[in-house]
């Protein structure tokens, strides 16, 4: 059961007027946390809203927990939790009142007081929604998504506009959800968020999934990782290369600036510094660069992630 996909999207196409928002998108999400990563306008929200049953695909199929989100909406809705990108609350409703209301629509809701406390909303329980700060509104929306004890939660940019502390609190809750067996689909354009949280990342660009895998797989799959250092110009890179494992590379990029490529691990770093010591070289500005999802994204699409 656990490895059945929670979300299965095949060839999804969605157009708004003349604009194609999603263009033949395929996505399989399994239990755990799946991050849908992409720049603004890539089709993240349209994809997620198709899964939530808001829009009927122009073509393709969508299955969520094995159900059609439009035709079998009544069966699906109690099983999912939804956090919209913004809004969703009566402007005059108080935070705890709205959360209690959503809890009342479910058969076995979470303890509302504990949840508000957990998300730091305890102090603003009596405040009307319109007077909450942006961060408080975000956390209330998150609480509304999880209070019904769903199997699967959709979070559309859950940390957009949050300060670092609130962001970490949100991440902690998402991790706890996962630990208790709730699956999470979240959209984000923060690659660190995807790296930190996700078991699986789907990178979306121009309405298509351009890569999918664990953060590690995606980063490994890109260009090789590199080690850079500076030293005096004209070092014998052939000699350095001989000291390194077989599949490594070494080059002087500009006079005095060197790059070593290959499997960068502690052993390789020690080999490089040992070689430097043997040759009386003081390696300055030595740095190990791991490829990030941002690099992978740039490589795949030629675009910056934070568009």
């Amino acid at each position: 059961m656990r490895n059945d996909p929670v979300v299965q999207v095949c060839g999804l196409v969605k157009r708004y007027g003349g604009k194609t928002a999603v263009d033949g998108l395929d996505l399989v999400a399994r239990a755990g946390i799946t991050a849908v990563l992409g720049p603004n306008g890539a089709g993240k929200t349209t994809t997620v809203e198709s899964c939530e049953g808001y829009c009927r695909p122009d073509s393709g199929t969508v299955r969520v927990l094995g159900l059609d989100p439009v035709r079998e909406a009544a069966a699906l809705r109690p099983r999912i939790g939804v956090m919209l990108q913004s809004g969703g609350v009566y402007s005059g409703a108080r935070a705890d009142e709205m959360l209690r209301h959503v809890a009342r629509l479910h058969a076995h809701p979470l303890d509302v007081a504990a949840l508000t406390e957990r998300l730091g909303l305890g102090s603003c329980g009596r405040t009307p929604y319109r007077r909450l700060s942006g961060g408080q509104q975000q956390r209330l929306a998150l609480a509304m998504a999880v209070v019904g004890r769903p199997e699967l939660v959709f979070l559309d940019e859950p940390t957009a506009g949050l300060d670092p502390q609130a962001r970490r609190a949100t991440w902690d809750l998402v991790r706890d959800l996962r630990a208790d067996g709730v699956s999470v689909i979240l959209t984000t354009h923060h690659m660190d968020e995807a790296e930190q949280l996700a078991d699986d990342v789907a990178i979306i660009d121009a309405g298509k999934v351009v890569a999918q895998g664990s953060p590690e797989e995606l980063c490994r799959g890109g260009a090789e990782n590199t080690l850079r250092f500076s030293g005096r110009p004209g070092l014998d890179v052939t000699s350095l290369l001989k000291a390194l494992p077989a599949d490594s590379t070494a080059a002087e990029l500009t006079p005095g600036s060197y790059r070593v490529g290959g499997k960068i691990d502690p052993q390789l770093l020690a080999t490089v510094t040992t070689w430097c010591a043997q040759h009386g070289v003081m390696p300055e500005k030595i740095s190990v660069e791991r490829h990030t999802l941002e690099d992978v994204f740039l490589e795949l699409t030629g675009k910056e992630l934070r568009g």
Partner: protein
Amino acid sequence: MSAGTDTPATGGGTYAPRPGAAPLPRMIAAQAALETRMLLRNGEQLLLTVVIPTLLLVLFSAVDIVDTGEGKAVDFLAPGILALAVMSTAFTGQAIATGFERRYGVLKRLAVSPLPRWGLMTAKTLSVLVTEVLQVLLVTVIALALGWSPHGNPLAVLLLLVLGTAAFSGLGLLMAGTLKAEATLAAANLVFLLLLVGGGVVVPLDEFPQAAQDVLGLLPISALSGGLRDVLQHGAGMPWGDLAILAVWAVAGLAAAGKLFRWE
């Protein structure tokens, strides 16, 4: 730590899934209670639904501003104010509230909750009815204190109020579901004002030229105020003509709203 090798635990955790919809009656009751609280908490809504009708009733009963015909002014005014109360809640209040709920994504968020759409609409109707009951009680108490002596068949009054509510709800939801929230706010208030003046609420329709009377008489507010007045002031039987006008508005308005309402 891919999903395959590090599978999430299931079991007794705080957030362990235990999904399920609450029983329908409980969901609808909770939704209706929330909607009613939102309405009663909103200052502008209270102005429309409580302050203006009460003020008009007291003011026009006490001061002879318009010629209300033979008999006590309050006997003429109370039925009109009851009609106004229905319009203020079912049409103006509901249109403005629903327009802003659409604008702020409340309807969108509720659409993915376990509460079905028809359940939401039922709750809205219940909330309107609860508010109207409170209004009718208030207007009745004040009017009786002002010396009102109502006549007629309570069943006819109830039928008029229900059909009037249906007619105004249809029109209010049609407006809320098709216009922008700000446009709904402006238009709903304007229509309220125009119908207050031209719908036989406090100004008798026979103060208008005959040609205007023929048109104004077909408005839902005129049918409601006229029908209530025939029964409550003159003790008439079933006002079939007015009931028919309200029924036509109700069917047309609700059908158009059902077809054209946009949830986002």
